């Protein structure tokens, strides 16, 4: 079970292009990456979820952690390209209404520029 994280920095937004599984074994890798970005004071974070096929409750925990942490940094955190099965988990958890989940990268960037 692996998680791929590719970091793309453009202007003041860091996009993490994620692939694979966000579960018990891999969620801590994403959390470490987010902590590093927060330490560097990048004011915007985008998760590109297009390649994520599986999110467990540990994965949800990191998403919630990121959202909470970003509230203290101007609340510029968005996710996009979430697959249907993952979206069902976010919706059942009551998280989809609290997170900025949009269609694609352009929509995420537009949202963070507001």
């Amino acid at each position: 079970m692996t998680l791929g994280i590719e970091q793309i920095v453009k202007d003041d937004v860091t996009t993490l292009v994620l692939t694979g599984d966000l579960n018990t074994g891999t969620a801590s890798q994403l959390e470490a990456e987010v902590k590093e970005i927060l330490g560097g004071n990048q004011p915007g974070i985008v998760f590109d979820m297009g390649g994520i096929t599986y999110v467990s409750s540990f994965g949800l925990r990191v998403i919630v952690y990121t959202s909470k942490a970003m509230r203290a940094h101007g609340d510029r955190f968005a996710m996009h390209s979430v697959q249907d099965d993952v979206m069902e988990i976010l919706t059942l958890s009551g998280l989809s209404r609290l997170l900025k989940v949009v269609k694609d990268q352009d929509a995420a960037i537009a949202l963070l520029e507001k």
Partner: protein
Amino acid sequence: MADTAEQSISNSIEKLDVLTEWLIAWMDENHVTKSVAYKLRFAMEEIATNAVYYGFPTGTSGTVKARITADTVSSKYSLEIFDDGEPFNPLVESPVADTESEIEDRDIGGLGVFLVKNLSEDCHYQRVDGWNHLTICIVE
């Protein structure tokens, strides 16, 4: 006709991937649809992870076992998780999941079990001969 398979691991965090890999291989062989495969994997990982993390007194060794059975006629899947840890019924003893609060107050404790209940058709728990035995039924 019913196809069944099972896999056990020791109660160690490093072994959880063994269960996941076993289930994914079985689901591939049996052409389980993407949506059902997600639910089965989610249910197994949440319950097995909880058992390994919280089910055994510190320093004790034990076993976590998963069994999958497919009723190929009705596309109904029965996933059973067994562990010989402390008696614990996750369906009633897990923390109550919070799906209402704003993000600042969110604690995701109990969310895994809440989601398993919601994604499945039926779940039930028994304690048998020193084993916790949870059966989760998932339908196409």
